[in-house]
């Protein structure tokens, strides 16, 4: 039996008249990529907000490697290693692409302000190694040439990749990605897929919300389908592709549109 990275138990959230998430339970196994799909407004982003306590759930509980996340602030949850990206890229303006990545590495900094201010060798070595990691990551997603460019001046697709890389730099124990491929062109999507697989292969599980079906089918080990806040189906990409209810609710429409 594989370890469970994240477990949601009966979480619900209502906004006024809208039941955005209804009594939803799911699990994200460690060491794998889980995709969360569903039509617009299905409640996917809300699930992320509930998991990271940006909104407090009306009911239910979320466990992260067995620890309850109840009563923790978003900052504390991030500090535990549950990192997320936002649907609209939230790149830090006024910083270069590499600096954005390094800011993400905050959790990895063990020699803090005092060490850095005194230029002590351990802090210098740590900084140098973080830089190397950041540069390697930018290389992996084909953004090396943007390394020292203002991150906010990059094309939208590149910004989203930078945001994903920034979260990866944090050395997460689970990565939540909200529509990382939105706005990416085909090359960039391919690079994203490579990145996601690389991240999984170094042992970081991923929960990814995505509309791009070919990407989902390509990288996901498990797919969770959400509709109107309810769990509609769960299975391997192959099973989901042939699930009648999913095709009716979602995939059919999508495929016609394509």
């Amino acid at each position, binding site marked *: 039996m594989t370890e469970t990275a994240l477990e949601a138990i009966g979480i619900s959230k209502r906004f006024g008249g809208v039941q955005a998430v209804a009594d939803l339970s799911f699990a994200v196994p460690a060491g794998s990529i889980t995709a969360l799909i569903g039509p617009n407004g299905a409640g996917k982003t809300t699930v992320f907000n509930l998991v990271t306590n940006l909104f407090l759930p009306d009911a239910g509980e979320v466990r992260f490697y067995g620890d309850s996340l109840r009563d923790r602030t978003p900052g504390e949850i991030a500090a535990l*290693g549950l990192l997320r990206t936002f649907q609209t890229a*939230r790149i*830090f*303006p006024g910083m270069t692409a590499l600096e954005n990545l*390094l*800011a993400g590495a905050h959790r990895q900094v063990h020699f803090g302000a005092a060490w*850095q201010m005194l230029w002590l060798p351990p802090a210098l070595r740590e900084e140098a190694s973080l830089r190397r990691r950041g540069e390697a990551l930018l290389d992996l997603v084909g953004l090396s040439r943007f390394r*020292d460019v203002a991150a906010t001046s990059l094309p939208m697709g590149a910004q989203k990749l930078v945001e994903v890389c920034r979260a990866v730099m944090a050395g997460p124990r689970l990565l939540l990605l909200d529509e990382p491929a939105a706005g990416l062109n085909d090359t960039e999507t391919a690079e994203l897929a490579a990145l996601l697989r690389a991240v999984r292969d170094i042992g970081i599980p991923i929960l990814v919300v995505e509309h791009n079906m070919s990407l989902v089918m390509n990288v996901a080990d498990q797919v969770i389908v959400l509709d109107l806040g309810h769990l509609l189906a769960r299975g391997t990409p192959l099973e989901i592709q042939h699930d009648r209810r999913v095709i009716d609710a979602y995939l059919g429409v999508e495929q016609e549109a394509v």
Partner: protein
Amino acid sequence: MDQFAQIIVGGVLQGGVFAIVALGITLVYRVTGIINLVQGGFCILGALCLYSFQSDLGWPLPLAFLAAVVATTALGALLGAATFVPALARLPNSSMLMLTAGLLTFINGLALVVWGSQPYAVEAFTGEQPVNVLGILVPSQGFWIAGITLIIILGIWYLMTRTTLGKAVVACAENPTAARFMGIDVARLTLFSFALAALIGAIGGAAVAPILSLQFDGGSFFTNAGFIAVALGGMSSLPGAIAGGLFLGIAEQLAAGYVSSLFANGLALALLLATLLWRPQGLFVAGRARRHDVRDELRVARSVIRPGARTVSVAALVLFLFLAALPYLVDPGFMSSLVITLILFIAVLGLDVLMGYAGQVSLGQAGFMALGGYTAAILATNYGVTPLVGTLAGMGLSLICALLLSVVTMQLKGAYLALATLTFGLLIDSLTVGLTGVTGGPSGLVGIPSFALGPFVFATPQEMYYLVLAIIVLLLVILTGGMRSGFGRALQAIRADQTAAAALGINVPRHKMAAFAICAMLASLSGSLFAFDFHFLSPEMVSTPRSFELIAMLVIGGEATLVGGLSGAALITLLPILFQPIALYKTMAEGAILVLAFQYLPDGMLGGLWRLIARSAAATPAIADGTVAERPSS
């Protein structure tokens, strides 16, 4: 009982004045979400214009009054159209707050140029004879003030509730974006509210002119009182502004009547500090319709020109050699000004960590200078403590104050730290003036010894210069180490986007607190050195205008550059000394430079310089918006 009634009458009158200023501030706040510190400047301009038209030109009162109000309002509309409104579209709230502080400095300086520094008195509108109402003597001007206040309140009430314009203001206050979609021209409305605030300020200022002694910097007094009233009453509520003004006026008069006037001032500020810390939504308003967050989304991208490590090393070496050789290059009489420049630069360095990197605003940097300066000076002068220990004691005290201030404000978004630090600075101002027995009062503390380290005494400007230079080099090495690595990046991430920073596991409150602590301790160090250098310390050397000056130095020099502030400090300190004739224009120029720098020089002089170097050296191709980045090679 009689005395009590008399005091209450005095309190209501004074409160009416505060309420008028507060109304102006609230009006602009409701439309823009900006605390408009320039408001008091319009009051003093109205009052001084009234004096000039009446006494110098000999115009009759009604004509002089009208002309004073028209002239002030016109200037207000002009300043609004040229600075406030265009800046609002581009600058974040914190910068806007400082821009209005710059405008206030500009008006103070303008008044100094036009009216000089002597006090003026205006005759009461209808004779000086007080009126006896049921045994209570009410100054005749009191009826004018009460009447005019009432007319202003009714006028605003009518405007807000009965006219389309007023409804547009309300819509804008609730949601500017939605208002724009509804076809409301937000920019014009902003200008309208700004000019209307100037009008109210001018009328109020002219009305109270006869009961005050008018001086060029009276605008700061009005702004402080109005700002305290607004913060007490609840930021965005018009009735709250009136209630806050009256409450403040009565409380001050009671304290002054029964205790002392020093106590009155300190009490008001302590009251405000307590309010900001424990009930930030104000005393009189249940936390409704706070509009802080509306504009917080505006994130300003700063240029990301990163000069390479070699460029930086060479530039740093050249700068160091230049500074080290400077005493041999300049006239000895000039040395003491250079020392002051360097000492002030230490305070600017601290401000850069807080403002430039972490994006938090402190308007009370001079308060910490005063804390450090007076603590060290008093300990060294009266208790024989060594200067070094005195300096460290000052820094410790500043650290404690900074932590106390930040414990609560750091949890809140918006302008609370700025407001709390401004209040802190004003409180320290009133203490340094008032605690005559301890601080020497307005005439200052004399006989402060020279700084000394063991047997080494730093008595001459030359010796002091090298001491401060050594401290600065040390500080620059330390701060560069911190800012170039994880700590500095965490601060910049917080400045850029708090939510995203927290989502990366950055402990936002703790980092803000660390930045504030560094900022306060460096100000304290600077204040101590200031005292040991001058052998003298008086309140106005380290009072609130100095806080604004330090901000100007930082912004002009270049934020988040550490060393940039040196050029700002040098410019503002040395130019008036180099060109004596312009000394009179110093305050005005400071204000103007600050405002212009915010609008046209977002990266300061140093940023502009890097930009030029990077552009001319354009080895790297320009990408997208022309931002060029050199390769850092560390």
